[in-house]
């Protein structure tokens, strides 16, 4: 797998404020990578550096094999960017806005018209193509933004907060579109977001960025494992919960704590103690209704990182 993005020791200081501080990033071809972090963590700055729109104070970057600070045009020809605060020329129609982008990419007029019609079809805006963008809703603008990105047929797409401020249905459509792009066109996609459940659904790997540093990286499952740090969490439901059962559970080897929440028993342990829990419940005379290992959601992982 060849690397689309390679960044080492990336730093960017604005008047002494460290926006990005020693960031290492690698994104492989065909991957959907999620960049997560609170507002002001340095997500947008990182993206601007990758596009050559701002120069890093220190560090090395390669995007599709080119240095964006030295050869911005080559990077920008192959990279599509959907900015966070997406703006269009409100007085122009959707089609005219896209045509302008096509001409900026030096796509010849005939080809441009054809491609504009195609991408409008993909994002489902064909029937409002002649309407002024000023009259568009937030969701429509965002879809138009994706059309704008697709116009130049990029290899690598960067989406900055693609679903923020959009209703759940619209967000769903956009996420589906993103997944489809990867499947149909083999594009590499990087998206930044703070809407974690969405990222969790579609990203192969995520990186958590905090105060300009990448504090964790990997698939959602891997990150969960890291957070657990040898701690396993089990949720047990039994038909009858009493002190005797809890004492037995506490007595199991490897169990560190037992808590009750309603009819739910949470057991923390240093190893996988599920068979022993099951036996303990049965032997206490109660029936075992449910026993499952808890998987960490991205939200929990994320919060864990920022609590520390």
């Amino acid at each position, binding site marked *: 797998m060849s690397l689309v993005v390679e960044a080492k020791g990336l730093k960017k200081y*604005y008047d002494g404020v460290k926006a990005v501080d020693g960031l290492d990033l690698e994104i492989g071809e065909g991957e959907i990578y999620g960049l997560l972090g609170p507002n002001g963590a340095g997500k*947008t700055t990182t993206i*601007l550096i990758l*596009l050559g*729109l*701002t120069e890093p104070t220190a560090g090395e970057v390669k995007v599709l094999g080119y240095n964006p600070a030295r050869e911005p*045009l*080559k990077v*920008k*020809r192959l*990279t*599509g*960017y959907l*900015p*966070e*605060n*997406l*703006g*269009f*020329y*409100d*007085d122009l129609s959707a089609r005219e806005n896209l045509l*302008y*982008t096509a*001409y*900026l*990419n*030096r796509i010849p007029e005939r080809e441009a018209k054809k491609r504009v019609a195609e991408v409008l079809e993909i994002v489902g805006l064909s029937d409002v193509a002649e309407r002024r963008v000023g009259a568009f809703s937030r969701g429509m603008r965002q879809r138009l*933004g994706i059309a*704008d990105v697709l116009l*130049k047929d990029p290899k690598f797409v960067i989406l900055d907060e693609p679903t923020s401020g959009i209703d759940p249905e619209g967000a769903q459509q956009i996420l589906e579109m993103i997944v489809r792009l990867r499947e149909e066109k083999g594009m590499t996609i990087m998206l930044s977001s703070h809407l974690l459940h969405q990222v969790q659904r579609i990203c192969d790997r995520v990186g958590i960025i905090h105060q300009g540093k990448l504090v964790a990286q990997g698939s959602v499952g891997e990150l969960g494992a890291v957070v657990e740090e040898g701690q396993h969490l089990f949720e047990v439901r039994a038909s009858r919960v009493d002190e005797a059962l809890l004492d037995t559970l506490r007595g199991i080897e490897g169990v560190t704590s037992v808590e009750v929440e309603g009819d739910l028993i949470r057991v923390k342990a240093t190893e996988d103690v599920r068979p022993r829990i099951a036996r303990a419940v049965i032997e206490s005379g109660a029936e075992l209704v449910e026993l499952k290992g808890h998987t960490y959601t991205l939200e929990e992982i994320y919060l864990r990182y920022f609590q520390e």
Partner: protein
Amino acid sequence: MNAVFWKELADHLGSKRFVIFFFLILIVGGASAYLAAQALFGQETESEYIYLRLFTVSGGGLPSFLGFLAFFGPLIGVVLGFDAINSEFNRGTVSRVLSQPIYRDWWINGKFLAGLTALGIAVASIILIIVGLGLYILGFPPGGAEISRAAMFFVISVVYLGFWLSLGILFSIVFRQTATSALASIALWLFFTLFLYMLAGLIADQVAPIKPGVSADVFAKHESIRDLVLRFSPVALYEEATTAILIPSYRGLGIAALLQEATIPTSPLPLGQSLLIVWPQLVGLVALTSVCFAISYVIFMRREIRST
């Protein structure tokens, strides 16, 4: 750069403000030229360079066309430039446009050239309309020398308006708010068209006060100081330059030229000689425009592109 140029030009020519200012100058300029033509029609039908006098003679209480263009022309230039860049920031189109494979300077160059072309079209059509009006009233066609002088007048006028355009663009880069840059441009316009004339007189009065019975030397000094101060103003430079082009017998400003005129018969100069007289003014105008544009260029190239 072509794409930027054509889009901006189409925007300018279709914009309400351009149309409003164009017709304002057309109506007022046309009226003053019409009154001038009527005044000329009575007295000297066979005089040389009568067409040029359409631009400089005032009649019926209205100032001359030249006076109007010197005073109101800057407004058109400023109006086309004052929101060139900051409106793109406010709309959020900056990051979208600059993430296309174009060099950053193409954008600002394209905008400047498109503005200049729009100004050129406006000035050329107004001049042609006035000449047509003259043809209708006076009943004979303009001569070759008149045409070449009118063409020169056109070039100088476009450079002059180009200065105000580049000033507007500079302010649009320096100020984030369009309202601020519009007000700053108008403040500078008022300063150069009104206050500097008062200021020049005031300074000259202080340095070389004219009292009853002062020698010719003091009088000459007074005038030269006044001229020196005025030459900081593009308005004064433009007025001098165009006066020399449109009035072929004009031999320069200042007391020396006034004295000469009294002793030497005022025969018209060839175009080359007239140009020679106002060469410093022309260079000054071009230099002011270039300086404004160069400052804009430097600031814009270093500006951080952050959408938030």
